[in-house]
């Protein structure tokens, strides 16, 4: 958000005397995407509530893909199809990667970054599987009230 303002000011600095901004970020979607790509998860969610255009862009899964693999070398292309099949990158990030990263942040070692993503993927897959069971017409297999296996990630951390 701060980046955005700074950019806008920079752009309008020369034309300040006219008192009419000639630069409107929404006219330049490619720049907007560049900016949004660099945000963290929470800011991205906030950005999604600015206006309809921003909401549409923020929902784009590739932005969330960037978030998931931000500190990791790019994964093989096969990962994308798997993640999309299991529910998409936004869900992966908000449900798994972010809680996993914040929990492990305290004891993280540098070599764990890739393994964090892999573990998140596995947990994500189990979660998808459990959701499959709930949506079955015969819902006896998994109780609706039973939290998914990712619930343990949502609990407050016991310091």
């Amino acid at each position: 958000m701060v980046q955005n303002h700074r950019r806008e000011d920079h752009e309008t600095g020369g034309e300040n005397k006219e008192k009419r901004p000639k630069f409107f970020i929404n006219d330049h979607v490619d720049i907007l995407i560049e900016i949004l790509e660099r945000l963290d998860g929470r800011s991205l969610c906030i950005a999604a509530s600015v206006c309809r255009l921003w909401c549409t862009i923020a929902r784009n899964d590739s932005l969330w893909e960037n978030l998931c693999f931000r500190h990791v070398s790019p994964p093989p292309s096969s990962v994308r199809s798997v993640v999309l099949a299991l529910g998409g990158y936004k869900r992966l990030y908000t449900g798994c990667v972010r809680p996993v990263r914040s929990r492990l942040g305290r004891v993280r070692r540098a070599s764990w970054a890739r393994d964090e993503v892999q573990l998140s993927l596995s947990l994500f897959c189990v979660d998808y599987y459990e959701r499959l069971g709930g949506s079955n017409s015969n819902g006896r297999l998994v109780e609706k009230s039973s939290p998914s296996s990712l619930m343990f990630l949502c609990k407050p951390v016991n310091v």
Partner: protein
Amino acid sequence: MVLYDSATLGGSCSGSSSSSSSSKPPPLQQRQQTQQDIDGLLAGAGYRVRSSELRKVAQRLERLETAMVNSPADLSQLASDTIHYNPSDLASWVDSLLSEFTQPPTCPSEFIMDPETNQTVVSDAWTTAEPHMPQVHQNISYQQQSLNNQLTVDNQLTVVTAMEEDSGIRLVHMLMTCAECVQRGDFSLATSCLEDMQGLLTRVNTVCGIGKVAGHFIDALSRRIFQGIGGGSINGGSAYENEILYHHFYEACPYLKFAHFTANQAILEAFDGHDCVHVVDFNLMHGLQWPALIQALALRPGGPPLLRLTGIGPPSPDGRDSLREIGLRLAELARSVNVRFAFRGVAASRLEDVKPWMLQVNPKESVAVNSIMQLHRLLGSDLNRNSPIETVLSWIRSLNPKIMTVVEQEANHNQPGFLDRFTEALHYYSTMFDSLEACTVQPNKALAEIYIQREIANVVSCEGSARVERHEPLSKWRTRLSGAGFRPLHLGSNAYKQASMLLTLFSAEGYSVEENDGCLTLGWHSRPLIAASAWQAVSDGPADFPA
């Protein structure tokens, strides 16, 4: 047993009898547990102390030690025999010694929670006759207990009043006594023990801690004494119920997740480079282990193999084919991630009823056998036929699997002697319940506890073929499997790293993963509770044709 005898009171400490008697409760007051008054263990050592006063005596001993150490005065007057007449009466002996010191006690951090008003009372008023523990036993209200519960939940600490700690210790003593009676066959004494324990339970916090575990063990003992050793309702739970409980146990604590992830990692590594793979799961349940493996196979470099899964499970009574439903769900997942997948269900109520031809193993495919807490059920020996464990292990070996993953509880619950088994189970399940305290998500926690409770009931109250929870420790499994023609495979650093990460995600900081000679164990505060290992069949030698 003898009440605190007022006759010895006069003889023990002539100089300070007034102070010691005023701090003692009147010996003739009404108490429920009169015959169990004197602590048994100290009595064996020659000291008579009332169990309810254990904590008080201990605190005073500490104070005495501090006073002795800090006292500038010459301590020779303590050596006079005329004052300390009866050292076996430990409580009054300590009091009399303390009365020798004119200085106030130097323990600034000593507090006693006055159970009635729940305020802390500085304990240097040890000579006053304050309403002390025995009298307020019966006055503990439900509000007080729930206050304790609230504190426990909020602070994640166990706020145990002095009285409760005593009662907890006494409960454990009484459980041992009862178990010993059962082993001896003295059921009348065991029954009276049970009644006493049930009375004691009302004074202990049964929401957490020793009270809860003791409650389950008391239930199991009464089941054994009154309903016999046939199992009955414990083993009669439907397969559907068992699956639900198992699922909640999976969610509530990391043991099963650890088992699944570790086994999957080992299987993934064993299947490296193979294009046609077949996994045999000895207990499918909801198939929670397999999504992660399917996903990992989908993403492995070189592309996914053709995966066949054979799931063994109990038959469903009401015509539903639950195995097939799970298979369909897994197939749908596999289809979403583009893994060629085939499922086969084998319904069998006991693992020893499964024959290898039912699994339809193709000779060209690589086989993995996965047993999560199933092998120990085969250890009941039946003299009429071959021991089931040997039968099953030999046909596993005949399949020539690339890997066999074995996860078992790390406990020795298969000893022939009942008391040993009981003791071991008490320690093991206390630790497990401790670890469960970290989970606050309901209904996971409550149902997970029922799952564990069923195990306890089976270990304690069943015998013969009804007792299926015959856990053995890793060392015994090593011997057994090596003797059956398997050699161990090391689980590797990836599995260890993954297990450590998984553990770190759980909010309680008490879990620990340890590596034990190529096997991984997960435990609570350095007591291992579950052990995962991997095995491969030893080839029979160059003379035999490869299968």
